[in-house]
């Protein structure tokens, strides 16, 4: 097969590597032949991540990026050697685990060496007294979680991508799970890490509950998206598997009423593990058979943990919902959510109809959450070709929320999939920034949001760029993400 038969989306960025044979030989020397490939059959597997636009390209026979080498290191020393070789030859290196990212984070825009972390899949220790698990970061999320479950624990980190993502991916993209309102986000869960820096140095942040030993340097690698280092091992908090789980749902007249109820629950220092607010459209989509939710805003809660505490949380949750015009919808909607939360069929059914769609999650404080919702809906509704813009709110804090928008439509005549996709993305992000929100809640920056980083961070982005330059002077580690605007678009 000639790989050129596949149209390359980021073709203008690709850099040709001249002495490929020599580099393959060098890689094989320390990785072993079986852990290096330049076969088309392997290269093609690493040409995209799980960005929804990439699915349109897949069915159209296009590829996003094209790597030159695939490597499967088995030791941290081997990763270090790959990075040293890449620095010597000035070749990009792209860390990859499960490829579940949705913002282009693992796309090899410039080509280069893929470091597939899948062989780093061991669970090293469960410590009951400390309530920690230490694992290698290539481990699949579900395989980690079900192992913990079998021993009577949970990590509490249950993203919708649980089946398809890795511990390393969670850390790289600063992930948040569906149960995070109680258990925290990945940065709250990770207690220690081993990281290999771009020049190949291996550093370790020992696991500790808390320390005042200077700035939290370790946190910089959480959300680094594989641009500052490769995390090879992490120690996470775990919890005894919950003794009791209570399912609650209420519908509200408006999203504002639901926000008020939820905010008041959290003000009481009550943290249901799961809270999900669905706007009117998504309520219709998921709960059309719930009579009490017609043309209203469905909100589901899961309280879990110690039985006595769960009972108290339930009572406070119900009190706040009823105070804010909530109508009890029983356990059915929550059971429906549990049954369907991993039944993802939409990704498989839209692209054959050339529909362009995606999800964009953003963050905000409470006082602007409703404004952001309405601004995004209005702005995206105006885009020619866009057919739907809906939202649910899925991550909660006493001080704010994470809102998850879904858009979808067909590009008008003369507009490419990517152009239409970018227009929708940029419109949402712009509306969020103007309404005082933050551009990403838990998927990260990758390619899709890099254009807006200056607006999001202000001059602080220059500090970040300096740090990147210091750690990675040849810019070999996952280039084209976070700091570089590959899309070159978006009206500011």
């Amino acid at each position, binding site marked *: *097969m000639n790989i050129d038969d596949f149209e390359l989306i980021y073709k203008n960025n690709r850099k040709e590597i001249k002495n490929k044979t020599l580099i393959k030989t060098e890689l094989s020397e320390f990785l072993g032949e079986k852990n290096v490939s330049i076969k088309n059959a392997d290269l093609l*597997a690493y040409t995209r991540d799980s960005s929804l636009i990439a699915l349109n390209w897949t*069915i159209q026979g296009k590829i996003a990026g094209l790597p030159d080498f695939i490597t499967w290191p088995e030791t941290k020393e081997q990763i270090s050697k790959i990075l040293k070789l890449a620095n010597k030859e000035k070749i990009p290196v792209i860390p990859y685990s499960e490829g579940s990212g949705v913002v282009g984070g693992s796309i090899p825009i410039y080509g280069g060496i893929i470091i597939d972390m899948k062989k780093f899949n061991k669970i090293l220790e469960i410590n009951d007294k400390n309530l920690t698990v230490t694992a290698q970061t*290539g481990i*699949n999320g579900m395989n980690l979680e079900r192992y913990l479950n079998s021993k009577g624990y949970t990590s509490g980190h249950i993203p919708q991508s649980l089946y398809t993502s890795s511990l390393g991916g969670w850390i790289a993209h600063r992930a948040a799970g569906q149960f995070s309102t109680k258990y925290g986000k990945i940065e709250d869960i990770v207690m220690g890490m081993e990281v290999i820096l771009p020049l190949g140095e291996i550093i370790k942040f020992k696991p500790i509950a808390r320390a005042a030993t200077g700035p939290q340097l370790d946190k910089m690698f959480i959300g680094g998206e594989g641009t500052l280092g490769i995390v090879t091992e992490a120690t996470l908090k775990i919890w005894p598997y919950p003794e009791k789980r209570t399912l609650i749902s209420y519908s509200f007249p408006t999203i504002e009423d639901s926000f008020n109820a939820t905010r008041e629950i959290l003000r009481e220092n009550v943290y249901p593990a799961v809270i999900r607010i669905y706007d009117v459209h998504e309520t219709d*989509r998921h709960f059309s058979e719930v009579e009490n939710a017609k043309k209203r805003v469905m909100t589901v809660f899961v309280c879990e943990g110690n039985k006595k505490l769960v009972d108290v949380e339930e009572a406070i949750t119900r009190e706040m919902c009823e105070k804010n015009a909530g109508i009890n919808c029983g356990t059915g909607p929550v059971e429906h959510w549990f049954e369907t939360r991993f039944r993802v069929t939409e990704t*498989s059914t839209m*692209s054959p109809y050339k529909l362009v769609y995606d999800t964009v999650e953003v963050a905000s404080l409470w006082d602007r959450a409703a404004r952001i919702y309405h601004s995004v809906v209005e702005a995206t509704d105006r885009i020619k070709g866009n057919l739907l813009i809906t939202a649910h709110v899925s991550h909660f804090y006493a001080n704010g929320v994470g809102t998850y928008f879904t858009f979808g*439509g067909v590009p*008008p005549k003369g507009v490419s999939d990517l152009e239409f996709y970018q227009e929708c993305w940029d419109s949402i992000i712009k509306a969020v920034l103007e309404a005082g929100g933050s551009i990403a809640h838990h998927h990260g920056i990758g390619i899709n949001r890099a254009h807006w980083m200056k607006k999001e961070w202000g001059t602080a982005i220059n500090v970040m760029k300096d740090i990147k330059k210091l750690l990675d002077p040849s810019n070999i580690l996952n280039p084209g993400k976070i700091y570089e605007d590959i899309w070159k678009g978006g009206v500011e």
Partner: protein
Amino acid sequence: MGAFETLKKYKWMIPLLNKADRDIKSILMKNMRSKEKNFYPEGEYKADVDNLIKCMLCPNMCRFDCGTLQASQTESMSPSYKARIGYYLTIGKIDPTKEENSDFIDFMYKCSNEENCKIWCPFGFSVVSLLETVRDDLNSKGLTPDYCKEQIKKLEESNTIEGYNIYDTYKEHGIENIETEGNDDVFYYIGCESMKFPDVIKANISILQKAGVKFSTNLEKKVCCGGPSFNIRDSDTAEKFAKKNQELIESTGAKIIVSDCPGCVLTLTKRYESIGIKIEKKIIHIVEYIKQLLEEGKINPTKNVPVELKKVTIHDPCLIARNLNDTASIRAILGRIQDLEIVEPIYNKEYVHCCGWSGTAHWADRVLAIKEASNRIDELRETGAEVFVSACPLCELGLNYGINPEEKEKFKILDVSELLVKSL
């Protein structure tokens, strides 16, 4: 998903779509109408393109439980990627006739048929069921890989899965052959892989005899069920073996066919039916029959098994657990053996992980299959038991490959019948 379910699922979109401009609606309608024209191949093909597309666009919801992916730890072995390659081979984006693309063709066979994927699939299919349809097209183009042709050659030449007729070895292994008198209660249908485990066969014969069952084994006439030809999708060979077996089975007059190989049970039933051959007999795995014998009191385990066999773990054969939906029989049998400690592995019953020796993967990539077996051995070892009990010759073969040579003495892989017979 049927038309009604689809309409119900997407009903919520209708008011939103109604708001769209006329030209956008027109583009949308055109896209809806042109799906097949845009993305389906022209001409005749057998590939299940509709579901290959669904699978290749899925975020790989089953990836964490795919045995070959977990064994290889390479993205190229992920289920959605295999579907993607199947699709590209079907539409000609990757030309299957070119020698340089043989690696891509191999992906269509690197599956151990365990069907864990089906449990997690949002559409409810297994990846192998899609890959098999791609194999159909490869076969019709004369592109069957050599390692598959070799298996068909063995079937044609020896009537079994070996290069020689493995049933001929029964005498040298001291296996009693019982020819039918045409009026048996039971035909004990011995699988060709089972012939590699004479002690299992002897145990089963002993159990049936102790229970007073009138049965035959017909080893002089016995041939393979044809299972490998169904995996390879060689329909001519499959039909030939189906007819031979139908004739043999009917000649015994037996009301019940019990096999020690779940692959045989699947082939004699669902797979024969898929090519229009229905054997009107009760065809079950022997564990189900032995469970029944225990319940009826026809056998009664009273003896203690040797102390070194007292602590066991169970490896459920995928085909018994997920295809025959029977995880109770093995446990019921073991539960009747006195003082036996049973430690369940994390992945058990319908969630069992494969031994690596099913499907076509072990022909296409033996190293991969052994790694899959060794992964399963690691899971069984974690229980602390040193006796691994199963009920399938392929599993027992695969698990044997999965144990490090230096640890062969430490761990024992036993068929449930071997353990039971010691207690009778």
